[in-house]
């Protein structure tokens, strides 16, 4: 049988005990005599736990501290800021305060008695463990605080000490309590994360006494401070190239606006499609001149590739694609099942723009689980596209947004629908085999699966010139194409673009079909003789309506717009601007300065005017709503109608910004505002010398142009999205950058994508309009966009705000 381990209780002379207590209750500590006596008596409450004293004194009148005494101690400790050296008196006062109602025979006081013995034994060691006494005091004090999560600790400690008078058992219990708590914290069973550590401090104190542990000083590094390399990886450049190539940027935590993080990041710095991961180590790159040359050329090579110049030898011509498509089209209607399924894979890849891999995976899954080749309610299979935009969860705004969905569907030709009725598996080797056959029979030596996959994107981008539609229709991830975030686009545009693309792609089908029909059956020959080309086309249209006139997909019917759910309908947006303009009360002849600045209507008018102008600038420029937007006055060039902005919060200062044309509406609004603030300052500043509008600095572009008066603290300060949000409040609880969405959606399809992307800063690296190598002139950019921006102002029925002033 196990012998229960017993603690060798040491007997201490009363004098020694008093001397030890003196160390934790110094002479200068508050009410030291009372505290000293109380501790001595408390220790004697549980003899033979850790120690026993030879108490010669006869009067063992145990008297607790009174209310006043406790308060005196607590106040004195706090006022002297001596919580560490007077930790035990402090603890005792707090404890007494809490357990005053309990008699000294209660388990709580018995626990304290044992706890004090432990403390005393630590003092006796006369080593650096003495520091632990402060911690032991803190643990009890904190646990006694109201509503503290640490209250559980003292309850458990009392329980443990009541269950056994053996210190070893107590220690084991505390240890398992600590481990249990740690486990619960790590597994998330409890929400706190620091209790185990605190129990550990107490456990350690017991361990020191029981196991007689010596103090081990923590090792420190050379100069006494821990050195952590805190260099944030900000840029990761491809080494040793003369030009700026690709930078990887890691987002700083930016809490100034309420735009969804992913959107903010993608908008600021979309991952480039360029995939040049080759990054030699510094040494390698430096050692070899050749290496350096290679990095640069491989980079340039893949970059040129992305431009997709028609002169690129890796591209096929449209007629090549058409013949591939025609050949495949024949195959799915004529050949045996095996072949027609493989052909269907390639065809599907061509008309959906998805990779062959993806299509193989898609057709191999159950109908109900398919991602983009889904069956609609009527049993028709369609291509389902979704633009993965930021979902608008603001219920109040939802009813007035332009688009209510980010899904739309495109019809599939009937023969493919038939093939897709059941799931089937196709080996990639079979597809490659078919590609090989095609290569030979059509003598297209360049043809590869990449060509098949990119044909739809190629045709829409380069022959229909709708790069945005191409991204949407081919299912490009929104992270790779930030414009998608902002697009509220009319569904009919997308469908007609797709129709046009399919028409181009299937152009050869008619010819080949005619050819087949011509020499296969005499009947057809006869018929075709009778048909003139016009009628023949109609006949084809009847047979393959898909190519000529796509069927309507039922799920699209109620979706006039799809995409970003941030843009409001033009009518509501216009109403909002009218509301903002109305709040300025520009027509009021006389306002009231009020009794103090809080009531001053002129200040309120100033704020309302700034609020309106901020929104006007947003809708007319589409800039990001960063702090201090729109920047300084000298960023507006009134003679060239151009505004320069650098609004990227993530790579601040690193890029060179972009130019934005200033519409005539915006120009007038700014000019009116400038003359208004001049006049405002002349009235406001003498009246409130303690918070003046620094008009000179605004005009000299030393402080941000758009200011707002803040009441706490009282001063004029640059406008921030946060202030805008609180000023607008529940009138329109929306994402800060909603006007960027609004402008984008109002420009889409009205003006060439190139200009919109340039305006919003959504261009790919090195393809910017203002790139030194760009052949586009700034003037053309300006003249294309200016009328469009003014059209936006007109469509929203924006009215100028003007404040009449005299003198």
């Amino acid at each position, binding site marked *: 049988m196990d012998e229960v381990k017993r603690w060798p209780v040491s007997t201490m002379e009363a004098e020694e005990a008093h001397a030890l207590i003196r160390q934790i209750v110094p002479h200068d500590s508050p009410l030291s005599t009372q505290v000293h006596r109380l501790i001595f008596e408390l220790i004697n409450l549980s003899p033979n736990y850790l120690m026993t004293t030879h108490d010669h004194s006869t009067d063992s009148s145990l008297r607790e501290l009174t209310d006043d005494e406790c308060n005196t101690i607590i106040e004195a400790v706090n006022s002297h800021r001596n919580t560490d050296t007077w930790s035990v008196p402090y603890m005792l006062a707090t404890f007494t305060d809490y357990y005053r109602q309990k008699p000294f025979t209660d388990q709580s006081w018995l626990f304290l008695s044992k706890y004090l013995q432990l403390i005393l034994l630590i003092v006796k060691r006369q080593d650096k463990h003495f520091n632990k006494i402060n911690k032991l005091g803190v643990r009890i004090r904190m646990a006694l605080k109201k509503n503290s999560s640490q209250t559980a600790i003292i309850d458990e400690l009392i329980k443990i000490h009541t269950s056994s008078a053996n210190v070893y058992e107590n220690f084991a219990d505390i240890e398992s309590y600590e481990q249990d708590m740690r486990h619960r914290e790590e597994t998330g069973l409890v929400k706190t994360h620091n209790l185990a550590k605190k129990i550990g401090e107490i456990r350690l104190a017991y361990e020191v006494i029981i196991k007689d542990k010596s103090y081990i000083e923590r090792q420190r590094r050379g100069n006494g401070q821990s050195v952590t390399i805190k260099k944030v990886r900000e840029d990761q450049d491809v080494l040793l190239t003369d030009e700026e190539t690709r930078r990887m940027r890691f987002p700083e935590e930016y809490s100034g606006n309420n735009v969804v993080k992913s959107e903010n990041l993608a908008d600021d710095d979309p991952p480039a499609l360029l995939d040049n991961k080759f990054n030699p180590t510094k040494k390698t790159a430096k050692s070899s001149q050749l290496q350096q040359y290679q990095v640069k050329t491989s980079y340039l090579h893949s970059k040129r590739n992305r431009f997709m110049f028609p002169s690129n030898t890796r591209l096929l011509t449209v007629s090549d694609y058409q013949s591939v498509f025609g050949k495949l089209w024949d195959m799915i209607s004529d050949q045996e099942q095996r072949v027609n399924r493989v052909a269907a894979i390639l065809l599907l890849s061509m008309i959906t723009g998805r990779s062959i891999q993806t299509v193989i995976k898609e057709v191999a899954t159950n109908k109900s689980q398919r991602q983009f080749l889904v069956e609609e309610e009527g049993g028709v299979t369609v291509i389902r596209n979704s633009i993965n935009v930021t979902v608008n969860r603001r219920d109040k*705004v939802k009813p*007035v947004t332009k688009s209510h969905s980010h899904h739309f569907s495109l019809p599939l030709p009937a023969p493919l629908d038939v093939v897709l009725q059941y799931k089937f598996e196709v080996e990639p080797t079979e597809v490659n085999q078919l590609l090989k056959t095609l290569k030979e029979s059509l003598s297209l030596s360049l043809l590869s699966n990449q060509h098949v996959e990119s044909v739809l994107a190629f045709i829409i981008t380069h022959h229909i010139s709708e790069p945005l539609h191409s991204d949407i229709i081919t299912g490009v991830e929104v992270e790779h194409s930030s414009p998608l975030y902002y697009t509220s686009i009319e569904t009919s545009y997308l469908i007609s673009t797709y129709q046009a693309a399919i028409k181009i792609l299937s152009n050869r089908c008619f010819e080949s079909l005619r050819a087949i029909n011509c020499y296969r059956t005499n009947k057809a020959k006869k018929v075709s003789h009778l048909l003139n080309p016009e009628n023949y086309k109609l006949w084809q249209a009847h047979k393959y309506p898909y190519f000529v006139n796509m069927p309507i997909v039922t799920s699209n019917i109620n979706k006039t717009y799809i995409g970003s759910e941030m843009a409001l309908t033009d009518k509501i947006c216009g109403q909002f601007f009218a509301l903002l303009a109305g709040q300025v009360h520009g027509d009021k002849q006389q306002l009231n*300065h009020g*009794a103090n600045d809080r009531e001053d*209507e002129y200040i309120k008018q100033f704020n309302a005017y700034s609020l309106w102008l901020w929104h006007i600038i947003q809708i007319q420029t589409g800039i990001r709503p960063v702090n201090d937007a729109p920047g300084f006055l000298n960023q507006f060039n009134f003679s060239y109608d151009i505004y320069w902005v650098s609004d990227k919060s993530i790579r601040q200062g690193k890029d060179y910004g972009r130019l934005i044309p200033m519409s005539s509406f915006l120009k007038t609004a700014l000019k009116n505002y400038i003359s208004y603030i001049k006049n405002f300052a002349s009235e406001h500043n003498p009246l409130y010398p303690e918070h003046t509008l620094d008009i000179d600095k605004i005009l000299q572009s030393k402080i941000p142009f758009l200011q707002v008066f803040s009441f706490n603290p009282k001063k004029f300060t640059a406008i921030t999205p946060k202030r805008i949000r609180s000023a607008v*409040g529940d009138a329109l609880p929306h994402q800060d950058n909603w006007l960027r969405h609004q402008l984008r959606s109002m420009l889409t399809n009205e003006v060439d994508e190139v200009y919109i992307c340039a305006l919003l800063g959504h261009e790919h690296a090195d393809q910017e309009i203002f790139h030194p190598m760009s052949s586009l002139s700034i003037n053309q950019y300006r003249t294309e966009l200016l009328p469009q921006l003014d059209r936006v102002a007109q469509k929203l029925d924006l009215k100028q705000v003007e404040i009449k002033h005299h*003198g």
Partner: protein
Amino acid sequence: MCSMTEKPVARNHFFTPSYTTLTVHPRAALAYKTWLKFRPKTSHIHLTSINKYYKPPTRIIFCDKQGYLYFDNFERMANILYHEFDVSQPFIIITGNDEQITKMAWADVLRLCFYRGVDHVSLWQHLQKHCAQTTLKELMGCDSLFNEDYCNFAGINIDQYSYAQRSLKQEKQAFDLPQNMDWTNG
């Protein structure tokens, strides 16, 4: 008050405001602020081309090396500083007496109640709050400072005054946006 031995002196002086610092006397500061709040939003009369000997002079007080202080005639001074700061102006430099300065400053403010379109209710509130009662009684020439006294002095109808008082309260909050989306229905 000036003692009999120290006779108040006044001398004429011409100078161009843009070369001199002209500020409001600290004793007139409160009155000046009140005047600023209620200054008439009227056009000004162009005196730029008038010969300096014909222009109305403004009383100012010498204030060590920093310049001169003015304490009344606020409207004329505002026009000078805004439109005629670069032409020579006539000034009368006098020795200052704090009590006289304060009274003259408030007298200039009190004159505002004769202007058309002034916000009588707010002006009277300001006067009662910031101007010493004895001064106000003396300047208005009355024994009490009830609304009736003001109306009597300003020459307006007490009913007009009460009506303005009521409508003043309603116009507050007009600059803040409504905290709901009801505007979308409109």
